[in-house]
């Protein structure tokens, strides 16, 4: 199987839409974000869809704000993108907030104090009021995998094998697909 034909290739994983839990959708989440004064955190374990959800919210927020997406990768010492002076028309989305030290996070909050909003993505609660806690399940993994590759039969305990990380489980299917096709 050619890389371009693998249904679990990167750009397809990146285009997966966030699956809102029952009773919740983008408008209701945006309302809650507004109630929290646009200072909030998306909390959840690795591979649970925090980045995917933030991109979905960014689409809506981008109509009213100029979005600054900042990522702190594991092992990096500085923020991937330095922030300019921010105003009420600006909105900061910080991915990897819990990789920042206490002083650095305080610096960022001060920097963004005049911004229209600050949304952080974190594995643990406590940095800002929690907007939503993202979770994973085997059923969700099966749904996403079926969307990418209808008819692909996955392993029943795949999510458990990947410690609840849906993204890792989907990447593992890339390899399975490639091997199965030869």
């Amino acid at each position, binding site marked *: 199987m*050619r*890389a*371009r034909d*693998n249904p679990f*290739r*990167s*750009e397809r994983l990146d285009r997966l839409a966030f699956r809102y839990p029952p009773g919740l959708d983008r408008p209701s989440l945006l309302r809650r974000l507004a109630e929290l004064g646009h200072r909030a955190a998306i909390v959840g374990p690795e591979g649970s869809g925090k980045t995917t959800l933030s991109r979905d919210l960014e689409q809506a927020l981008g109509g009213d704000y100029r979005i600054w997406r900042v990522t702190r990768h594991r092992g990096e010492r500085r923020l991937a993108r330095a922030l300019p002076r921010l105003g009420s028309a600006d909105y900061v989305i910080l991915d990897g907030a819990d990789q920042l030290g206490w002083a650095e996070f305080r610096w960022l909050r001060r920097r963004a104090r005049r911004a229209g909003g600050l949304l952080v993505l974190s594995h643990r609660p406590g940095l800002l009021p929690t907007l939503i806690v993202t979770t994973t399940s085997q059923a969700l993994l099966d749904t996403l995998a079926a969307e990418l590759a209808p008819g692909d039969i996955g392993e029943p305990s795949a999510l458990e094998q990947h410690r609840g990380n849906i993204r890792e489980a989907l*990447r593992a299917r*890339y390899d399975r697909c*490639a091997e199965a096709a030869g």
Partner: protein
Amino acid sequence: MTALQIRLAPASIAAGGRLDGRILWSLARAPEITVRLTWQTRGKGTTDEGDGPSTEIRGTAAAGDASFALTAPTTPPSFSGRLISVIWYLTATDRVSGETAGIEVVIGPNGREIRLS
């Protein structure tokens, strides 16, 4: 007819070879079209992309056609392995109307995609 069309003969070319084609258009106003070769990766890794050569076509009427020629780059060629594919595209973009058209092009030794086992 769609607003912008690309006709290539053939749609596969040897690296370094000449790519001849025609752009056909039916628009509200005379266009200013950029015809460009670009490549993208597909596969397990994060997508990379790059630009190849380009040329400009300035139309004199709202509907018409014009020929173009580009020299296909030598690298990267179109290739596919287990983790990486590189795909070339020929795109035509009209700056006046915003219309675009695109078509895949195979650029490689003897006009074929390189397959890695």
